[in-house]
């Protein structure tokens, strides 16, 4: 069954009448799919997710979830979705168990069912031994898992994950991915997630939409996107300031050359074979290659290809964001 679970049509959000955060976005997510929004900080990922989970009104356009309109049928939408926000929203002064029961109460789940389900979920995310400990004693990974458990308490048909591993170390991140995969299999959900970690999108998503400046630039499966680059990428620099694009272009197997601030991004059929040819050709003309790198296509290359810039900048600002959040947590702990 390939029914479309989420359909967005011309979804747009403008802040303060001038800042276009999400710009006429169209996409659809099929039943049982893990669909990822990939993009740097400020690309409009969270804004999109906030519109889909009905806490932000679209300026223009709309979307539907399981056929319910996110503007007109907010209550129906809220009943069928689960949300795992970017922040750690669990109440630090309550225990893990109490937090899940609180979530269940908000959905109006009968108390008996809620109790059973809370234990079951805590078991699943391996927090059962800590269920009566206050959340303030939890580590980052544990908090993330608790958020997952809270988001699942109403057995949602569609789960929204906003940056599910933000701020976690690499090991915990991988573990969290496993939980997400396991939960998806267990409950057979459709998942919509945002991320700015390329490996995360690669590991979890069936399909990815690369989003930048509020627009979807390309959509496809991770493999499909990598294939679309049509080969390996060689990056070279030469010591001097001369335009050698045409020279490189004339070499066999070279598909495309782009000059990026003095270094050349060369798309080739087979990197291992072509790299020596390039060095050879350049030496004949009297140029010395000072630096060379060969990359097999990854999502990073996909990203670079379609947006023209690397995602590293985004990574840096995320660090600042994390520092701010830690400060906030301290302030709250008094």
């Amino acid at each position, binding site marked *: 069954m390939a029914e479309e679970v989420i359909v967005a049509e011309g979804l747009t959000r403008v802040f303060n009448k001038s800042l276009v955060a999400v710009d006429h976005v169209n996409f659809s997510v099929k039943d049982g799919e893990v669909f990822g929004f990939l993009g740097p900080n400020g690309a409009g990922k969270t804004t999109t997710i906030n519109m889909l989970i*009905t806490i932000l009104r679209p300026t223009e356009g709309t979307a539907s979830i399981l056929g319910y309109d996110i503007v007109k049928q907010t209550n129906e939408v809220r*009943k069928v979705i689960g*949300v795992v926000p970017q922040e750690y929203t669990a109440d630090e002064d*309550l225990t893990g168990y*109490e937090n899940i029961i609180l979530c269940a109460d*908000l*959905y109006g789940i009968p108390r008996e069912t809620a109790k059973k389900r809370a234990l079951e979920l805590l078991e699943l995310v391996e927090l059962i031994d800590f269920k009566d400990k206050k959340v303030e004693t939890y580590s980052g990974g544990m908090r993330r898992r608790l958020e997952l458990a809270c988001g699942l308490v*109403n057995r949602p048909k569609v789960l929204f994950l906003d940056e599910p591993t933000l701020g976690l170390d690499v090991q915990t991140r991988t573990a969290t991915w496993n939980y997400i995969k396991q939960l998806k299999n267990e409950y057979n959900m459709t998942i919509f997630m945002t991320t700015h970690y390329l490996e995360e999108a690669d590991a979890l998503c069936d399909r990815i939409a690369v989003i930048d400046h509020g627009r979807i630039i390309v959509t496809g499966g991770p493999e499909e996107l990598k294939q679309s680059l049509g080969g390996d990428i060689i990056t070279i620099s030469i010591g001097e300031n001369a335009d050698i694009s045409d020279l490189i272009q004339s070499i066999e197997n070279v598909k495309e050359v782009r000059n990026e601030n003095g270094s050349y991004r060369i798309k080739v059929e087979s990197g291992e074979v072509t790299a020596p040819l390039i060095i050879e050709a350049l030496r004949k003309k009297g140029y010395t290659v000072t630096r060379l790198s060969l990359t097999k296509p990854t999502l990073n290359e996909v990203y670079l290809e379609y947006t023209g810039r690397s995602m590293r900048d985004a990574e840096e600002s995320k660090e600042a964001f994390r520092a701010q959040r830690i400060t906030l947590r301290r302030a709250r702990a008094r």
Partner: protein
Amino acid sequence: MSKANTYHPSLVRGLWALTVRELKKWLKDPVMLLMLVIQPLIWMGLLGKSMNLGAMFSASNLGNIPIPEKIPIPGNYIIPPANGVVYISGTLVSQMIQQMFSDIGANVMGSVFGVTDYFSYMSIGMISMIVMTTTMFSGMSIVWDRRLGFLDKVLSTPVPRGAIIFSKVLNATLRAMLQATIILALATIFGLQVSSTFTLLNILGVYAAVFLLSVGLSSVFLAFSIRSTRLERPMQIISLITMPLMFASNTFFPISLMPDWLQAVAYVNPLSYLTDALRQLTILSLDFPKLMTDFMYLSGFAIVLSSIGIVLSWRYLSK
């Protein structure tokens, strides 16, 4: 696809869950509980006992006025008139003056404050003060929830929006009522003099009055901070509003002695009505029509302001 979820998110259930969450946080904090007792103790000690206005008229303050041993009185002032000069004992005169002075004192206290001891007057006023300072945290708490992302999470659930708003109001109200209880208990221990019309039933009236003002005030503070993402804003509003509100009322000092312009403010200040209702119910002899006026005003205040607060909140809760 499968059938829709059959759960029914209800206003009452959501309201209770959200309220209990905050009460739990509050009551689990031992420092907070200690503060609950210490704060009123400090105020009672500072204002109630040290500013002992009644004692100003006590006889000991007359000690320095010299009264001679023997006081000569011309005979024609004596009844019936006598010849020459008559002497009476200075001690007797001194006693009489002291008696009159303390009568005047009691009279002044009675007519100005309605009671003879300032401590009783002030400790009841303090309930009003606590109601105000407690309710203003409703605004702060919604800003916290917004900043921490908790509000967004709650908004993404089907819980009725009203439950989110009312939980803040209810939480502030319950806290205020608990604090009123503590103050009453402490005041009783330290010598609160209740009037002859006081019965245990009046305590219910006290709660009702505290409830009404809490609902009104917390709605106001909530409406002011509903859109804010920074704590500074509600704090500024609080400091701007609370002090004038407290002193332009009969919380610590009777309205009748204020200048006209301040009286005008005090007469629309809901805090005055709460304080008056509380005093009527406890330390003053009950004036039923006046009490009714107080309650009518407080009810009006609660209904109008909570409606405004809730309409605003509904409108601005989601962005």
